[in-house]
């Protein structure tokens, strides 16, 4: 409980500083009004619109107004969509979360057997291939993988739809694209971690007890090699949401990543803030879960 309390106490100032940074960056970088007016609008038109939207107040007045509303749970309205910013984000969040979870699932499904296999058959030909492919998988940028997958599995061999998010079959190419890099990284990590555990004495003991190899690998080796893997999963999940910006664009996926890209382009402050806020929350929650899983995996870990 104390651990939870401390975590929450850390979250509040973190989020507060985050809003200030994001607010500052968007304020400096862009100009919402010139993106909203017709090209040939005059300086007068511009002043009128700025005033109507409350955008001619000094930076700190705007920021304080924003924070005041935020404390009451009001993220403000999108300038472009004229809708509550949080609502825009929440509408798209399920699509992004589903995509990220699917990618994570694919990464886990690919990496665990491959990683264990590569470690057990260390220095074999297959180990060599698996490690080689992992490095390749990590090196390929996901927009390129996405475009290639579309070219081969949607245009040349029309197995999957090119883009969109209507049916479950639409999930395949985008989640593979997003999952490849993570799968590659996790495979290498699992291989290394399993190798380390294999050399531990308790593994020798288990084997000398005459336990079946399958049980040895699964119970003694695999479970004990999970801790670094959980760390990676915990850290990577929010990063997947970041990677979704690219994958969502390539596959016309109606998620938060594309909304973020559009809103930054339009300097739509309220929406950018809301997205960063939500992603930050997800990151914090993912970290909390990671910490909790540690404790289950290894009861020796204690938090003071």
């Amino acid at each position, binding site marked *: 409980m104390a651990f939870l309390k401390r975590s929450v106490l850390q979250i509040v100032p973190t989020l507060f500083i985050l809003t200030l940074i994001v607010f500052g960056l968007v304020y400096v970088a862009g100009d919402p009004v010139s*993106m909203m007016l017709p090209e040939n609008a005059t300086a007068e038109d511009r002043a009128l619109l700025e005033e109507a939207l409350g955008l001619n107040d000094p930076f700190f007045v705007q920021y304080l107004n924003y924070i005041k509303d935020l404390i009451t749970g009001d993220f403000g309205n999108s300038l472009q969509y004229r809708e509550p910013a949080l609502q825009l984000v929440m509408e798209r969040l399920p699509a992004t979360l589903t995509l990220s979870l699917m990618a994570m699932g694919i990464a886990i499904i690919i990496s665990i057997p491959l990683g264990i296999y590569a470690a057990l058959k260390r220095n074999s030909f297959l180990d060599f291939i698996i490690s080689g492919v992992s490095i390749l998988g990590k090196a390929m940028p996901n927009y390129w993988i996405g475009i290639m997958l579309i070219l081969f599995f949607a245009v040349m061999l029309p197995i999957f739809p090119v883009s969109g998010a209507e049916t479950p079959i639409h999930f395949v190419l985008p989640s593979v694209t997003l999952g490849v890099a993570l799968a590659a990284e996790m495979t290498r990590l699992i291989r290394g971690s399993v190798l380390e555990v294999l050399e531990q004495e308790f593994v020798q003991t288990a084997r000398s007890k005459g336990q079946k190899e*399958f049980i040895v690998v699964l119970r003694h080796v695999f479970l004990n090699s999970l801790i670094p893997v959980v760390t990676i999963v915990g850290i990577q999940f929010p990063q997947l949401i970041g990677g979704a910006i690219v994958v969502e664009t390539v596959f016309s996926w109606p998620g938060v990543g594309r909304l973020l890209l559009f809103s930054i382009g339009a300097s739509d402050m309220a929406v950018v803030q809301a997205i960063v806020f939500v992603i930050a929350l997800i990151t914090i929650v993912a970290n909390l879960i990671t910490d909790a899983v540690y404790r289950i995996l290894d009861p020796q870990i204690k938090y003071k």
Partner: protein
Amino acid sequence: MKKFKALSMMLIITMLLAACGFTDPDEEPKNTEGSETTDGYSLLTIANPADITTLDPQNNNVITTSAVLVNIYNKLVKRDASGEIVPDLATGWEQMDDTTWEFTLTEGVTFHNGDDFTAEDVKFSLERVANDNTLQQYSVFNKIAEVKVVDDHTVHIVTEEADPQLLSRLSTVAASIFPAAHFEEVGAEEFFQHPVGTGAYQFSDWKKDNYVELTRFEDYFEGEPNWEKVHFTVVPEDSTRVAELLTNEVDIAFNIPTADIDRINDNDGTHVKLEPIQRVIQLWLSTEEDAPTADPRVREAIDLAIDNQVIIDEILLGAATPTRTHVTPGNFGANESLYDTYEYDPERAKELLAEAGYEDGITVDISVNNYYTEMAEVVGGMLQEVGITANLELLEQSQFAKRLFAEDLAEGVFVGWGNDMFDGSVLELFREDNVTSYANEEVDELLNEAAYNMNEEERSEQYQKVQEILAEDRGVVYLFQLEGRYGVSDRIDYTPRLDELYVVDEITLSE
């Protein structure tokens, strides 16, 4: 034994993968979509790079949004495919005096919700955009002082001062007519969740960042529309949009990369349509005293150093037309003698620089909207050939817009500019106190007169004269008018419009 276990593990994993990937009891796969598009007039699918941002045509400034909304609402007047202003919800109009116009309204028109269209709707809709200064189109309509209802089917539109552009304004999508009573009853927010117009197609669904769906309005006053359903899907990535077209998932893919033109033409069942759009690429040159470009000889040298056709051929693969004016054919006051032509003479350019005292060359800073980076780089190379070093400063769109308004750009500005009103008044960019500080009394005088001149012929001549002076003075160096690049399925007959709007009922199945 070991092998068997490994195998069974793999099998379980494969099944798991299958379980989470492919079965979802709530949704049945609708792979019918592909076949639907081949089924005559049941569905038309148009892929755009960006989603619409709103269903409110008066609070929008983006063509891709107007291009969709034009099908839901009607205006008093509209532009036909050739750009002429023709009746829409008004059967006729007459100018009573310099500031008063009488419009006779079409009778027997109903809105999608069944309400009858009357003069009150016109008054309400136009006064909304003329009075609410938070709307993005307010600046275009705020010259309308009042809309008077004479009877159910007659209105008088009164402008604050003589406005020769009134019909142009009324033909834009922002002049859409809403059902007043219904709008006032539900309020703006609710209204634009479920918009109601008189258009050929009624709104049925908007899955944000995914697609907008419109369905046929059977009681449309000009007869039953062609298509049962229209989908405007959003496909932001260029290569994905092309792939959607090649696999027959969409009928029209807008803004395809030039590199894919041949691929689409070579593919069985698709072709590319190139049609001019309103955007003219141009290089503004500062005439402020300390800028080297203040010397007209330097500006002329820059113009002569650029081989417009090479840029068109190499970068746009032919999808543009060279021009020496912004007011291209199809726009009011176009000076066609300055269109489809350009001047290129690098030798003369070098001489001019020498005459201006810059034998050793000069350096010009140019701010570039990064949308046009490639073209600007080629221009930079061409300028280098005659001894002008161009320092390109690439700016992302919103940054560019911000600095443009603050008049904080370099002495050269590389920009693409549209012409929403289809009118010579776009030249007012170069009226006194403008961004380049270009000053020419004759230009100012002509522009000021033309702005309020109700005599069309005279007004057109005034704009033509301004174009001549600008071309001579090189107050701005015009390069070329872009063409819209559309990938089109062979099953439909589609000619893209100059205004880039998708008027769905102009699109038919090919014979």
